[in-house]
């Protein structure tokens, strides 16, 4: 079980956002993908989740090709994506947002069990099931978005900047949750983050992107220790 990314390129018109990137992710790992604004992190993630289908190269999850596959099909193959910003539908209730993630399942009793175990984890959401998602705080929305993705019982979870616009304390909580989910559910997670230090602290592996290429890759500890990475991305 692994994700094999081989020579993936992404173009936006004449601009090359990602330039022939290759790397591997082992199952059960939490990988933090960091880099400055415009490094191509989101472009790569959107290519992996089928939102951008103009990518070149190959990215296989357990042998299944992710590139050029529609996101709604990827979900059925165990790949879920939480897109940038607060990826919930504000017009729907919390309950509906959650259920949305498992609509495609034929076996709704399975979905019911997943929902129950998620709600045990997140009592705050359980209390607010009938409220519209609009009324949630930023942190709660992000939790809801992650839970919605978890409702599909993914093996590979792609998270795009879950910390965006949240207070540091909440960010730490969310990253702890992600760490927790990875370990207890046996998930594989790619976490794209601007917030490099916090992300690396909870991650197993780290990938540093710069101008569409991999600038550094290795265990999260080794990246935190690397003076060049520290200077360029961690700010000290």
């Amino acid at each position, binding site marked *: 079980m692994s994700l094999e990314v081989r020579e993936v390129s992404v173009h936006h018109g004449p601009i090359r956002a990602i330039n022939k990137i290759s790397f591997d992710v082992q199952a059960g790992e939490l990988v933090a993908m960091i880099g400055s604004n415009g490094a191509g992190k989101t472009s790569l993630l959107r290519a992996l989740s089928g*939102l951008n289908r103009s990518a070149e190269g190959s990215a296989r999850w357990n042998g299944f090709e992710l590139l050029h596959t529609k*996101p*709604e099909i990827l*979900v059925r193959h165990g790949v879920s994506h939480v897109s940038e910003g607060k990826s919930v*539908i504000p017009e729907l209730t919390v309950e509906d947002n959650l259920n949305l993630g498992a*609509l*495609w399942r034929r076996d709704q009793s399975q979905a019911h069990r997943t929902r129950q175990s998620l709600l045990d984890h997140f009592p705050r959401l359980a209390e607010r099931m009938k409220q519209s998602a609009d009324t949630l705080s930023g942190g709660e929305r992000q939790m809801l978005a992650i839970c919605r993705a978890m409702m599909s019982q993914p093996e590979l979870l792609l998270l795009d900047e879950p910390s965006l616009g949240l207070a540091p304390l909440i960010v730490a909580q969310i990253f702890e949750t992600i760490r927790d989910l990875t370990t207890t559910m046996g998930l594989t997670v790619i976490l794209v983050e601007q917030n490099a230090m916090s992300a690396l602290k909870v991650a197993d592996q780290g990938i540093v992107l710069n101008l569409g290429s991999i600038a550094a890759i290795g265990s999260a500890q080794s990246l935190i220790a690397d003076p060049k990475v520290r200077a360029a991305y961690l700010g000290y």
Partner: protein
Amino acid sequence: MYQFINTIFIGITSGAIYSLMAIALVLVWRSTRVVNFAQAGMALLSTYIGYEFIQRFHSFWLALFLAMVAGAGIGALVDSIFMRTLFRRVAHGPIAGVAPIIATLGLLGLIRASLGLAVGNSDVSIRPPVSNVGYTISGHTLAFSPLKLVIVSAAVFLMIALSILFSKTNIGLSLRASAFSPEIARLAGVRVDRVRTLGWAIAGAAGAAAGMLQTPSGTGALSPDSLDFSLLLVFGFIAAVIGGLESLIGAVLGGVLLGLVLAFVLTYMSGSLVFITAFVLLIIVLLVRPQGIIGMNRGRRA
């Protein structure tokens, strides 16, 4: 006093029909961001199909059901073949913003002309399935007949069925999610393309019901260049706009409100003012309350 009550009856009956058309327009708008001007043509075609079934089975109710099935099929076909091609081919360029409008209008013309070619432009008539003679209360004949009762009940039944479908079922949840945020719905595994086609199909069925109910309650005459269907489209659109174009409940309220206003103008002022009133109402709503009577506070430029 009786005149007042009669006016309310007339308003509610015609309002119920406008509501059905408004529902059809809202469903398509929510799923595709297109105001489907071909809806009048689709309703006309479905009503003709219903007419054929009446000739064959001599049952209005069976024909109504079959016309709605046909309407759903037409809606699904139009979306999956026509609209999908359109969006693939005309994604950019100076005309991209208006192409869907032009295309649905072209479709309206195409359906009408083809229908005229196939069946001719002379009227056929759909007779009311039940009596259209008003109920009598202590010597006064009301403008409310068994037929009107049936129309209103059919419309209310359809609205309740639709609201259950939308609020209580998984299909309804996919429809709502795809309407509000297609991208998030897709990421959650909803096949948005199919859901959109389903939205068009339901709209086709609602439009067919509007056509089938309108015809016998009016003159009973049906022809490919019928002005009644153009007016049905225009009044349905106005009702949908009054309701905010996003909301099904708004569409129903908008339809009833429009029906009542027009009925009062008809009874107490003049028949010649009906259309002008509707048009002025549309302009006023657009200028004063563009988000509709129950609309959420959202811009109208999207």
